[in-house]
Structure formats: C-alpha cells, structure tokens
C-alpha cells in the first residue's frame, strides 16, 4: 500500500465506474421518463449526484484518515456489522454481475448471437479477476488506459452535424414523458450516475496530501458533459417519438455512421465499451472485496478474489434474457442509489457523535 492514487486517476476512475451499460439506453431513458428537452433534467440530476458527492466529501473531511469500516465498527458492535458486510459484498457482486451480463446480452444482439452468453461472460470475469488480484492502484492505472480507448468515440458526434436540427428539441419543457412524471421515473434516469459512491471506499488509498475530491468532481463533470453531448446529439438527430421507440439509441446512432473505408462500425465500438463495463464489474467486485477483508483480514493469496469472481459468474447465470436482466439491473441500481445517499448520512451522524467535544454534556 505504498503507492497512492492521485486525483487525476480518481477522476478517470469515477468517470469509468459511472459509465456502464446504461449508456446505450440513456437517450431513451431520458426521452421516456423526462420527455422533451430532457437534457435540462439531466443537468439537474447530475447536480443532485454532485450534492451526494459533497456528502461523501464531508465524510472524508471528518473521518480524518479513518476508513468507512473503522468509523462504523467504532459505533456498532462487530457481530452486527459482519452480516452487514456479507450482505453488502453479495449485493455489490450482484450489481457488478448484472451490469456485465446486460452488456453481454446487448453485445449479442450485434455479434456472437448464438454463443452461450455465459461463455462470453466468463471472458469478462477472467479479465476482472486479473485486474482484481493486482490491487486498486494497478486497477486505476489500467482504467486510465481504458479511458483513452473510449474517449475518441466522443468525436464521432461531428458526423451527425449535417442531420442535426435544433427544431426537433421543441420549445416544451419535460412534456411527452411516456408515463408522466414520478419520483420513480426520474430515479430511473438518475441511476445512470451510480458508481461515484465507491469513492467512500477509496479513502485509505488516496493521496491525502492532494485534493482528491477535485478529482471526483472532475470525473463526474466529465461524465455529465459526455452524457449531455450524447443527449444533445440524439435529441437533434431523432424525433422524440422515435427516440422513445428505440431500445438502444446509441447502437442505432453508431450504425448510422458510414465512413468511406468502413461501415457498420457499431461492431467495433461496442467492443470498446466492454472496457467501461469491465471497470464497473471490477470496481464493484473490489468494493465487495474490501467488505469481506474486514471478516477475513488475512486471507490466502487470491482466495477471496477467486471466490468473488466465481460468485459473480454464478449470479450472472440467472438473468438469461434481456428483459429479466434489465429488471434485475434496475432494481439493483435503485438499491445502490439508496445506499449512495444513506451511507454518507449515516456516517456523518456517527462522525458527529464520535467527534463530539470531549467532556461536553450529552443530550
């Protein structure tokens, strides 16, 4: 644990954890749940995620170097915490597995249609295992490379300029949402941001001498800009009804690109997004690993890592068709969003109590 993660790597890490398979349906999610000019809603939701990060930052400031687990164990007896850790670990493995499995199922719409999906999944799982055994510092370095694989995809937006008409945005605000507006519908869009909360677990690995939260904000800002770019391209390129009718507008968008020397480039680019999903899977497995390490402080070499990857593969067998996988992933993302808000608030309460002035009167 000699090397620490710099704010730069944290920024890319946050970007890549947040970017996952939900990206493919993002424009439809916005068109369906927010409606016309949904990009404004997206900015609002991103700000809410920003507030969530502020909460996490407060935890970091008051924790004064302690890890999240240490804070909790000081206040809550270990026999309560241990089952919670197991639950958390299983939950994170599930979340990671659902993300990766959904990616495999979407990938199979385009290529390897008849290959067993678990075979493709195990390939991703093996890669995740390799990353996992190398530790978080090396994961963050690998993520940097993956990030630079993916970022050029943004420049493809230029291709759509001739077909892009601002008049299709309409002058209506948040109209035509498929089911009207509800907390649940907006929450569904909000889940595209999940992932930043893993920063809570990064405290002990971050370089304390630097402003790591600058990195978190930059990563989140970068991702929001990327999502905004995508949404803006889609809302000017598709009509709203069309956007609501398309399952994965991003794949359609990519299939529209025809370069003089190559067409159907969605086949190539979809493969690049493997890395974004690999990072999400790896990081959720890593989160589970940190929880399990509280129970088994001195595990056999790689035993926990292998166990987690095997568990993830077992869980991934369950969603076999996209409809199930979609529903499971959505449920898991809702729960994760809940955790993202609840845990920092709980921690702040604990910290306020633990850091209360000594000798002060308790209420």
């Amino acid at each position, binding site marked *: 644990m000699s090397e620490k993660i710099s704010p730069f790597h944290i920024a890319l890490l946050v970007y890549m954890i947040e970017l996952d398979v939900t990206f493919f349906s993002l424009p439809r999610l916005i068109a369906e749940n927010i409606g016309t000019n949904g990009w404004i809603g997206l900015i609002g939701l991103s700000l809410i995620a920003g507030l969530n990060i502020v909460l996490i930052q407060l935890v970091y400031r008051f924790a004064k170097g302690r890890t999240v687990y240490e804070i909790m164990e000081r206040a809550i007896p270990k026999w309560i915490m241990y089952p919670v850790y197991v639950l958390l670990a299983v939950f994170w493995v599930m979340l990671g597995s659902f993300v990766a499995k959904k990616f495999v199922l979407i990938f199979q719409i385009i*290529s*390897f249609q008849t290959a067993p999906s678990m075979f493709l999944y195990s*390939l991703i799982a093996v890669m995740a295992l390799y990353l996992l055994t190398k530790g978080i510092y090396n994961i963050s370095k690998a993520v940097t490379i993956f990030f630079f694989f993916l970022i050029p995809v943004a420049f493809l937006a230029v291709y759509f300029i001739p*077909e892009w008409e601002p008049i299709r945005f*309409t002058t209506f605000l948040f109209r035509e949402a498929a089911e009207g507006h509800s907390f649940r519908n907006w929450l569904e869009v909000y889940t595209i941001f999940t992932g930043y909360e893993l920063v809570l677990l990064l405290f002990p690995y971050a370089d304390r001498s630097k402003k790591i939260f600058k990195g978190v904000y930059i990563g989140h800002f970068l991702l929001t800009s990327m999502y905004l770019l995508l949404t803006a391209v889609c809302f000017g390129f598709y*009509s709203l009804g*069309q956007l609501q009718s398309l399952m994965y507008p991003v794949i359609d968008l990519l299939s529209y690109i025809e370069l003089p020397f190559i067409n*159907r480039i969605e086949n190539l680019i979809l493969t690049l997004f493997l890395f974004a999903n690999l990072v999400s899977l790896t990081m959720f497995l890593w989160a589970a690993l940190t929880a399990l390490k509280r129970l088994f402080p001195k595990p056999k070499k790689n035993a926990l890592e292998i166990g987690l990857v095997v568990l993830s593969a077992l869980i991934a067998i369950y969603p076999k068709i996209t409809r199930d996988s979609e529903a499971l992933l959505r449920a898991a993302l809702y729960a994760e969003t809940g955790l993202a808000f609840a845990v920092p608030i709980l921690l702040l309460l604990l910290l306020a109590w633990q850091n209360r002035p000594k000798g002060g009167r308790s209420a």
Partner: protein
Amino acid sequence: MRKGISLLIAIVLLTGCRDEKVIDRLGFISTIAYDLAGSEQGNNMLHISISIPKAQPFNERVLLSTYAKTSKEARFTFSRQNNRQIVNGQLRSVLFGKTLAEQGLWSRIDTLVRDPGIDSEVSVVVVSGDANALLKSKYPQYSESRYIDELIQTETKSRDIPNTNLHSFTRDYFDDGIDPTAPLLKKGDMGLEIDGIALFHEDRYVARIAPEDALLFSFLTGNFHTGDITVSSSGGDGIDTGDIMMGSLSSKRSITIRHLDALRDGNHLDVTIKLKIRGSLMEYIGPLKLQQSADQIKLESDLNKYVEKKTEAFIRRMQAVKADPIGIGLYARSSMRYKQWKAADWHDRFPHVKVHVKADVKIKDIGKLQQS
C-alpha cells in the same frame, strides 16, 4: 503468470471460432422489393423479391421471389432455396410498390428497423407500379447488382430527390409536426428513372411531386448547396422568364410563423417561407439583354414570381392531402404552448394554415459571355 497470460490469449482468440461467418458462404441481400400480392394469393399476402449480387461472374445476381405474410417468413423460404446463408448486413435499398405504400408502410418498416443486422441508412424507395417487376427487369447497360442503389445515391447527391432512409422515415413518421417523403422510381425505356417524390400522410403514400418539379420542392424542404434548374415560362400569368438554365444553385430556407389571433391557439396561423436562392446563369433564350443590370433585375423578379407561384401550388396540394413534408408543423409547434399544440392534430390544422412563399433569387453571374 506466463501460463495465465497464454490461457487468457487463447480464450480470447478462440472465441472467434464461435458464430463464424465465412464470407464465401453468405448471400448478402442488396435489395428487397415488397408488393401487395394479387387477390388470388389472399388479401394480406405480400409479394417479396430479393436480389443478391454475385462476385463471380461479375455483375450477375441471384433473384429470389416468393409470396409470404411477413418479410421474415419470406426469408425462411429464400434460405431454403439458396445455397448460401442469407444475411441482411449489406442491404442497401428497400423498394415498396405503390399500392402497398398507399396502405401504409410502417408495419413493413418496423421489422427492418428492429433487425439489428440492418443499417439505418438503407434507402427507402417507392416504385410507381410494381416493385417486384422493377427489381426483376434487366438493365443491360448498367451494372445490374448495384444499379438501383447507385442511381439513388447520385440523385440524392444532386439534391433532386430526398435522401430517405430507414432512419429519416422513422424519424418523420414518429414526429407529430412533419411527414415522411421518399423518392419514386419507375421503369423507363432505357433503364430506371426517378419518377418524382412520394409524399406521405403519416405512413401512407398520398401524393406525388413530378420529377421536373423535384428541385423546386426541395427548395421548400431545406438548405442545399448544389443543383441545377431549368425554368421555362413565357407569358402565362404575366411571368415571362424565357428559357433559363441556372447552375450551381444554393438555397437557404427560413420559416416564420405568425399567429393572427391574440389567443395563439394555432387555428389562425400565417406562415411565411423565405427562400434565398443563388445561382449562376448557364443558358438564356429570351427577350432580355442580360449584360444590362436592369434586365438582370427584371429577370430575377420574374424568377421570384415563378418560384413563388410554383411552390405555393405545391403547398396547396400538400394541404389538400394533409401531408406536411416540409415540417411547417415543427415550426408551428415551437411557436405554441404545449396545451394548444396538443389540442388538435396537426394534420387537421395544416389545411387551414395560410402559407406564403417569398423567393429571393439572385443571379450570381451570367457566365463568360457578355453579349447575346
């Protein structure tokens, strides 16, 4: 460690052996034609043909034809007949017969958009007559396998006909302020011919713009930068332009919406379409002396009248069939409040809208010749 790495490389590379597609064993469909089958085949049957180009001998193709209820059902029949696995990945154009188009195309296009193998840039074409017959005919002067596709591509580039593909058709079909258009194709004496532009009401073909008017029509649908126009009008309606051919045309369109009532409820709309057209004069046979600026201005004003008269006539025809390919509805929508827009279907409002065209034609130059 080394073992681990070689294992990883092996698994990753060997994955490629699954779902292999050997190019020599595939039949790439390049064109599909759909028609309504005649009454002897049953009312809801389609007549479907596909064309698969062959690599050897060059320019040859395989043509398969069947009757089926859906296009996927037809594909099963084709697969049984063909010695190769039939795939959609290189589909370039779909042709719909006129009678089928009049009944509505969405249910046919739906399956094409749904198929992940099919690119959204596949051209959508309506055939004046029988699409299957057009696909089956031989055109000895042209490379058979790619003729239709190449013709559509060239014509779209010169901006005579709209560039309609699966994406743009779906987009305009789903938008409540605009209707799709598609190129019309017919069999001519020497080969295929563009037969104008098909106008749709939602997904139903309702009217045709003649090929000689296609360019004037495309002034209305958007901006463009290339194109030629010939105008020939002598004396009728007080417009005497003589015979003119203008080249290197560029045109800019702008649409302004005015509400004639204070309620702005969208029932009293006044629409002005401004067309800014610039071009070089390539040919002129007529009474004016074009070296004189005054005569050029006179000619420009005659051209303005000509463009305005023609395009306004198109718009009246569109209003009569409740088809809005220009997208006036998009602009009307932007000028209204949501509730007012939703109060009535645009197709019912559109016929009552007052539309004026204001053309601004300028002759950029008259070429190399001074005196005529």
